[in-house]
């Protein structure tokens, strides 16, 4: 293809993921999270915060998804830092993250979800949990105009196939991301999926 792939899917290696619950209106809660994780849980619905490798995605009014580099230990420190009503659960095994980049990455999302991913409605820093094909996913808009898509492991074989199929008409490439940053471009040799 002369003008390059329209859609590139890179899958992240193993990372740490946690489901965090608590009262975001409590400054102590927010500070406690920030102190341990290095990033505060966003209060604005459907947004995410990042600091370096670490991210906090808003999932609900008292629920966040945290991610950090593989091997990070958050559970005990967070339990220690947070008091009162909260819950922290390791869900590292459940999450698969892929990054979709390329000029037509948005088209793949439009084939997969009823959500409006127009940049006006979904600028960098936004994230949304929505239907994705016949599964559900968390989609986040990155500053480099790419998207991160996080879905459940048991659906991964189905969704990898779905995304490859949806991207095929635009020229589709599959690559991989490093294990550290969800979206750091590691220009590894990407192979054509077809």
């Amino acid at each position: 293809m002369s003008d390059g792939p329209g859609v590139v899917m890179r899958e992240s290696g193993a990372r740490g993921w946690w489901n965090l619950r608590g009262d975001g209106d409590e400054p102590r809660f927010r500070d406690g999270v920030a102190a341990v994780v290095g990033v505060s849980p966003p209060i604005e619905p459907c947004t995410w915060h990042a600091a370096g490798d670490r991210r906090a995605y808003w999932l609900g009014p008292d629920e966040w998804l945290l991610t950090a580099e593989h091997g990070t230990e958050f559970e005990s420190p967070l339990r220690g830092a947070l008091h009162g009503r909260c819950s922290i659960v390791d869900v590292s095994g459940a999450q698969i993250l892929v990054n979709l980049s390329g000029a037509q990455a948005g088209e793949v999302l439009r084939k997969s979800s009823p959500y409006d991913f127009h940049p006006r409605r979904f600028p960098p820093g936004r994230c949304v949990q929505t239907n994705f094909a016949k599964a559900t996913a968390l989609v986040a808009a990155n500053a480099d105009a790419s998207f991160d898509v996080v879905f459940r492991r048991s659906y991964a074989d189905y969704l990898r196939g779905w995304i490859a199929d949806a991207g095929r008409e635009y020229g589709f490439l599959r690559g991989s991301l490093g294990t550290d940053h969800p979206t750091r471009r590691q220009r590894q040799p990407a192979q054509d999926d077809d």
Partner: protein
Amino acid sequence: MLLIPCPFCREDRSEEEFSCAGEAHIARPEKPAELSDHEWGDYLFMRTNPRGPHRELWVHTAGCRRYFNVLRDTVSYEVLVVYEVGQPPPDPPGGDES
């Protein structure tokens, strides 16, 4: 194909993301053991099923997974009000039901 404003995500989101959990404000009796079979059956099964504004419980299944109440017209399908669980039911807009 409804467009439902999720009070937690604070966005209008498409019907596919939600599930309807039936009529709202059907509180579980505090002392079930003190009810007759008929009273208990009423709680379990009897519904108002109105033609017009209807208070329903919905959940944002594919989104934030939170339950909330919706006042929706079952004829026009217009979503009139959404409000959080535990808030008092708003009165249906008066008199103009077809």
